[in-house]
């Protein structure tokens, strides 16, 4: 009985450092308009080869407006500050990208992003992106260009709208200051 109580206390206290152990990246992507019925499906992984099929998503894609833009908001949570995010934005005829024309191997349009180290434990950061237009279909064997989002573009831990979110020494403002 005593051991159980002690174990209960230990289990209760062990994870309770009293500090945040997670980091949140708020993704805000301004999606382009599409005169045709299209959906933007977001697939977010880490360190996974873009050339591979990443499987289905539990959530359907964002419907693109015929004119004007709409904003896709996604919250990504992690406890690992070292992760790089790999993001695919697939433009599909089907909300779940299940149509034959949506098959990546057939050259379905997509945007690929690598977001460098966007997580800082205890901090909320933001990646704001604007996609001007739906990219064209790809030729067989062609791959979309990978857009790398530099870590200094990840907003957070400072006010205003600075051109960079890194200090002069190259560290991100969400990192502890070296000096």
């Amino acid at each position, binding site marked *: 009985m005593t051991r159980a*109580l002690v174990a209960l206390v230990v289990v*209760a206290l062990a994870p309770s450092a*009293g500090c945040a152990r997670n980091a949140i990246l708020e993704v805000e992507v301004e999606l382009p308009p599409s005169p045709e019925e299209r959906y933007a499906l977001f697939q*977010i992984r880490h360190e996974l080869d873009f050339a591979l099929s990443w499987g289905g998503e539990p959530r359907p894609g964002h419907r693109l407006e015929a004119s004007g833009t709409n904003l896709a908001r996604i*919250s990504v*949570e992690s*406890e690992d500050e070292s*992760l790089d995010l790999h993001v695919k934005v697939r433009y599909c005829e089907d909300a779940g990208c299940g149509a034959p024309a949506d098959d990546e191997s057939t050259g379905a349009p997509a945007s690929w992003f690598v977001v460098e180290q966007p997580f800082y434990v205890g*901090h*909320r950061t933001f990646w704001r992106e604007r996609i001007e237009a739906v990219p064209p279909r790809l030729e067989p064997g062609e791959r979309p260009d990978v857009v790398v989002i530099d870590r200094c573009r990840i907003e957070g831990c400072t006010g205003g709208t600075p051109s960079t979110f890194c200090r002069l020494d190259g560290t991100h403002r969400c990192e502890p200051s070296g000096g």
Partner: protein
Amino acid sequence: MLRCVAAALVCLAVLGPVPSARAQAEEDRYADAPPRLSESDVEEARSLFVAGSAAIEAGRWADAVDSFRRSYEVSGVPAALYNMAMALRALGRHREARDAFVILIDEHGPDLPVEMMRNGLVLRREEAERVATLVLEGLAAEPRHGITFDGSDVQDGGERPLAIETDAGTHSLVVRLDGHRAFLWDGALGDGERLALAVTLAPEVAPRRGVLRRPAFWIVTGVVLLAGAAVGLWLWDRSQQLDPQSDDHRVVMRP
């Protein structure tokens, strides 16, 4: 020599201050003092007898009782016992006086002078009539009870009802029996009074243990407190974590 000393002791008894003790003045009776007496015993008995007589002269009856008792214990001379009984009587210690007269007559009767014997018989009856008795009724034969009367233990021999002899005055009684609450009595008895006392021993009710004395209470309380603390810590820890702004599209990256 012993006979001479014994005779002197008798003379002291006869000439002593207790009028009724004058009946002891029969020299022949004291010639039968225990032959084992040594000269020193006789001398001690005589001195004690003289001291007892002097105590009576001074009105110190309790001292007289003590001196005559010790004199009798040393010598076995009935005059000392007689005088002791008379002193006890004067003190109102009728139960002891009666017992002394009983011993006087039962053990020394054939050897007592006629007048002492006659007085002894009368006084024994009178003293017996003045002994007060407390009769304890309602006691179970078994088990034996613990009885304290006037602060002294009374042997419970099993006789029922149990009679306790005493003298007139105020008294206190405590009767104890395992598993029962003690029976207490305080009261007064008059000369020769016989008082029947119904003794009721209520079973002892085990005191209810307060909830604070129950181990189960503390165990449950401890578990509840620990569980509450654990939940509280868990909730507090949760509150320290960052919450996503987008509720409808949330991705958790697993390492």
